[in-house]
């Protein structure tokens, strides 16, 4: 990642500014909560599909980062958040041509998420060795993004003019 950044010169300033903004915003508890929330994450239109599948799930009341950041210690959380945030912002400013078509959680992410499932659901897990597979999502494939990209709109007749309106922009 750093190597990639070094090769970029002109746009590095913009990127730096954005990144600094995020680091700064971490300073207050309020922005901290904000940058954990679904509202913040969905700012990025790229996050729209996961946001939509999330609000349609049993976990809507949570923040994205209840799952996506480690919670064992504040320090660990911040380091992870900083790294991940830098990635997302980098892609959206300088590296947009490298944004993947389909997102997949990184190995790191997966580990963090799984840890969070366990810590919330400790009670459920107490009596049963509820860990038959590598991760919770091998069975709970649809928690909370797994309903696929086909939301309710696909089940209704198409809206006239929709394709013209969205002639490139999902």
């Amino acid at each position, binding site marked *: 990642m750093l190597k990639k950044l070094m090769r970029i010169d002109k746009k590095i300033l913009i990127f730096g500014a954005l990144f600094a903004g995020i680091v700064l915003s971490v300073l207050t508890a309020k922005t901290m909560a904000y940058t954990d929330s679904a509202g913040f994450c969905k700012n990025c239109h*790229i996050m729209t599909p996961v946001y*939509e599948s999330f609000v349609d799930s049993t976990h809507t009341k949570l923040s994205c980062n209840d799952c996506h950041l480690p919670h064992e210690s504040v320090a660990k959380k911040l380091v992870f958040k900083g790294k991940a945030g830098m990635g997302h912002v980098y892609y*959206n400013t300088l590296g*947009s*041509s490298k*944004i*993947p*078509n*389909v997102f*997949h959680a990184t190995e790191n992410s997966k580990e963090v998420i799984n840890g969070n499932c366990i810590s919330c659901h400790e009670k459920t897990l107490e009596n049963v060795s509820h860990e038959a597979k590598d991760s919770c*999502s*091998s069975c709970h*494939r649809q928690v909370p*993004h*797994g309903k*696929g*990209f*086909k*939301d*309710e*709109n*696909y*089940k*209704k*007749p*198409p*809206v*006239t*003019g*929709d*394709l*013209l*309106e*969205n*002639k*490139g*922009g*999902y």
Partner: protein
Amino acid sequence: STGDKAATADATKTTGLSKDEISNEAFKDLFPLQYNSYQKNKQDTEDTKYSGSVKRSKYDADKEPYLPILFNGYGFATEYNEDRGHIYANEDIRSVKRINDKSIGSCLTCKSTAVPQMIAEMGDGYWGGNFNTDIWPKAESMGHSPIGCSDCHDPETMDLRITRPSFTKAMEAKGVDMSNPTRNEMRSYVCAQCHVEYHFAASNSEVTFPWNNGFKPEEIYEYYEKTAKEKGFEKDFVHNVSGTPIIKAQHPDFETHMEGPHGKAGVSCADCHMPYERSDDKKKISSHWWKSPLKSMDTSCGQCHRDRELDKLKERVIDIQDTHMEALHKAEDISIEAHYYVNKMIVSKISEVKIKKAQEHVRKGQWFWDFVAAESAAGFHNPQGAMSSLKTSVEESNAAIRLATEELVKKGINLDELKGEIEKAKKAVYEEKDNFKKKEHAINSYFPAQQPPPKK
């Protein structure tokens, strides 16, 4: 959600294009992303294990080398190629030797953007018109494109639409309410205008889809045996080896998909064949490069099968296809035997009644493997259903052979000689290098041609 946005969008907003626009180039500036994506259909250099976009003969040794026997007496024994990008549709139909001086307008139905207007203007004059002298020149003069934007989109609103009336008619005959299809359905329906089994109606040569009883091969066969016959259509051709009146199956992709695991789960053609992909400026579009999804597994499959390693998933597809193709070749083999056994019955002057009965089994045997062979996904669109069709094929071809065996042995015919001659004919077809000559080796002095001479 995006749907709500659109619902409130100004319904009168339009492209500014004429409602009769049929040239792809007219859409270029308005929709550069989709237009550029469409241009990728030109790529025809990479094959997958069983499909892909390289134009090469289906008779190749690693594909289906015995088709010139199995379709003997029909155009498909003369030239039949792997399909490729939509952009080639016009070029390919112009060059293929299946088109001759008697070919009709109906053949253009799924190739050119001029067709909907021609149907509207000419009616039956379009379906039955002469392809070479009338229909093609007219389409060219109209400035048509090969399968293009206007085939699936309303040029004014870009809404998906059905432009081939045969589809709507057939769905209604099947009992499907076509007044208000969902968006999800439309994402398959636009494809189902063309990627379906058809025949030309006896009365007016209109392209007709045989779905009254359902989409399964046995349901469609029943349609041909009853409904179509009642309307005067009983065959596509008379088989030159066995004299059997044959129904040729053509690309029943939609029918097969609808009965398979994905179709039943509500997955649409566009989900796999037009996956959302990011274009340069971050925006996602629907890919307009229709091709094998095995070349785009990340976007085509990964969006739904996030939890699976795509390499493994691909292995699974190949597994399914290997199992399928092996069974297909076996079924074709038995069908070939059946044709030759019946040829021998005719030569040996077995009773008409017995020959007719054997031919009925041959006809059915051929239908059930051809339905599967003509389908484009080497079994993937419906693994169990395709295999079930092959099983039925094997039953029917064997029924013909059993019947023939009984009668031939009664007449004292030496079956070992017959079997030897079948192997010889197959070998001759296989080894002929010139694809256009292959079909000639399927018949010989031992197995004389059974096709009635063409009507003048």
